[in-house]
């Protein structure tokens, strides 16, 4: 403190002799040091008062008293500054914790896209915030079936992420069981309804593809309808299914439907983040997506997903408003 006092006095004396920009600049650099050393505002004023006293020994006591007054009222200001600094430290701690949680989530929810000779599969899932509210879960028993669950938790951030891990474990336990879409949705609905807060809902599209029979069986719980392209008719069909969101009521039945996939047919499963660019005037988002998919139809399923994401990100000026997930099953 003594050292700082001496330095400050010199800088102030220089300025009082010569009111140059250079001297002001030196003063500002000096205050940076004081902030680093956590010198509070009231201490700065006290340092100033002593410096003035030394430079002008004849100064009136009224002026000196005015500094005492300033010290007194700056105590609160100093407290605010210290509180602010401590909150910044806490914020940094939270940020670090959040990064760890994000890493854990992405490790937990990591899904490899299955490789199946008879079916081309692609996926892109990009979170809008750190934690992803969308989740894609694949099941593949090599020879017979490839199944996929495309999930969107209503609600974002940490609560959604916690809910998501539960969905993942629910799906994991069903791995070797009967994986009919209606059965899977009914079981998950019961789990979520029992264990999650009333304000938390999950939408899910569940589809399972019979590799030998080329049959795609699907069901949906309040999820954005998947899009089916029939290449022989050159037509798109919305895979509507009026299932209730998971977690609303305990005993809900979910219907399942079957489609026979032919060469070049594909199924596009999305979350509502994909159709969430309604601000773009009178474009119907689902039509935009269908058109895009047709443009890219000669690419691999993975490239189709990536191109769609790139195009939509561009269309919305990089302001996608929700987690974005596209999965494509292409025959």
């Amino acid at each position, binding site marked *: 403190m003594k050292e700082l006092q001496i330095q400050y006095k010199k800088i102030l004396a220089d300025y009082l002799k010569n009111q140059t920009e250079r001297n002001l600049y030196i003063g500002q650099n000096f205050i940076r040091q004081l902030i680093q050393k956590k010198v509070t505002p*009231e201490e700065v004023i006290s340092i100033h*008062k002593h410096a003035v006293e030394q430079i002008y020994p004849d100064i009136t006591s009224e002026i000196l008293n005015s500094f005492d007054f300033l010290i*007194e009222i700056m*105590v609160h200001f100093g407290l*605010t500054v210290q*509180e602010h600094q401590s909150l910044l430290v806490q914020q940094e701690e939270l940020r670090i914790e959040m990064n760890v949680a994000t890493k854990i989530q992405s490790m937990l929810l990591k899904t490899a896209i299955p490789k199946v000779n008879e079916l081309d599969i692609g996926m892109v899932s990009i979170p809008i915030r750190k934690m992803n509210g969308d989740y894609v879960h694949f099941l593949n028993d090599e020879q017979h079936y490839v199944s996929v669950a495309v999930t969107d938790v209503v609600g974002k951030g940490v609560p959604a992420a916690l809910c998501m891990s539960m969905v993942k474990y629910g799906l994991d336990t069903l791995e070797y069981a009967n994986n009919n879409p209606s059965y899977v949705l009914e079981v998950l609905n019961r789990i979520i309804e029992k264990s999650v807060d009333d304000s938390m809902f999950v939408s899910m599209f569940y589809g399972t593809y019979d590799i030998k029979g080329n049959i795609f069986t699907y069901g949906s719980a309040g999820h954005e309808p998947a899009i089916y392209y029939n290449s022989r008719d050159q037509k798109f069909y919305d895979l509507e299914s009026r299932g209730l969101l998971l977690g609303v009521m305990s005993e809900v039945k979910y219907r399942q439907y079957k489609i026979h996939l032919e060469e070049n047919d594909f199924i596009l499963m999305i979350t509502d983040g994909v159709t969430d660019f309604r601000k773009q005037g009178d474009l119907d988002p689902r039509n935009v997506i269908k058109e895009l998919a047709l443009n890219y139809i000669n690419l691999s399923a993975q490239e189709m997903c990536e191109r769609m994401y790139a195009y939509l990100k561009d269309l919305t000026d990089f302001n996608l408003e929700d987690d974005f997930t596209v999965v494509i099953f292409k025959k």
Partner: protein
Amino acid sequence: MVGGIILNSKSTVEIITEWDIVVARQLGRNEAKIIGFGTVEQARITTAISELARNIYLYASAGEIVIERIEEVEKYGIRITAIDKGPGIDNVRKVMEDGYSTSGGLGAGLPGVKRLMDGMEIQTTVGKGTIIKIEKWI
């Protein structure tokens, strides 16, 4: 954290009206000056007293502020004890969190008081009252 040998007799100020806060401040400042605290430290001690007295005035209908000199080996200081029979503090950890009381503009809050001093101790029982001891050494 809070200890020391008491040298002088205590001075006590009852806090009933807002002006009693000023009396407590004055007493604390005089004492701090006699002990040998500098201007900035005097201002801090007085602010801490002010905050505790204000808490009594605002949240407990009555209470008192006790100011005393303390001494340890080659060490002098001041101790302020705020005693009230108010509602008590339900969650001490919560009131010691930054941003909890200050966000409502209620003042420095207890974390602020703690920062102004070297030591702080809170004893509280819901429905019975609160005793807060703070100390500062030269």
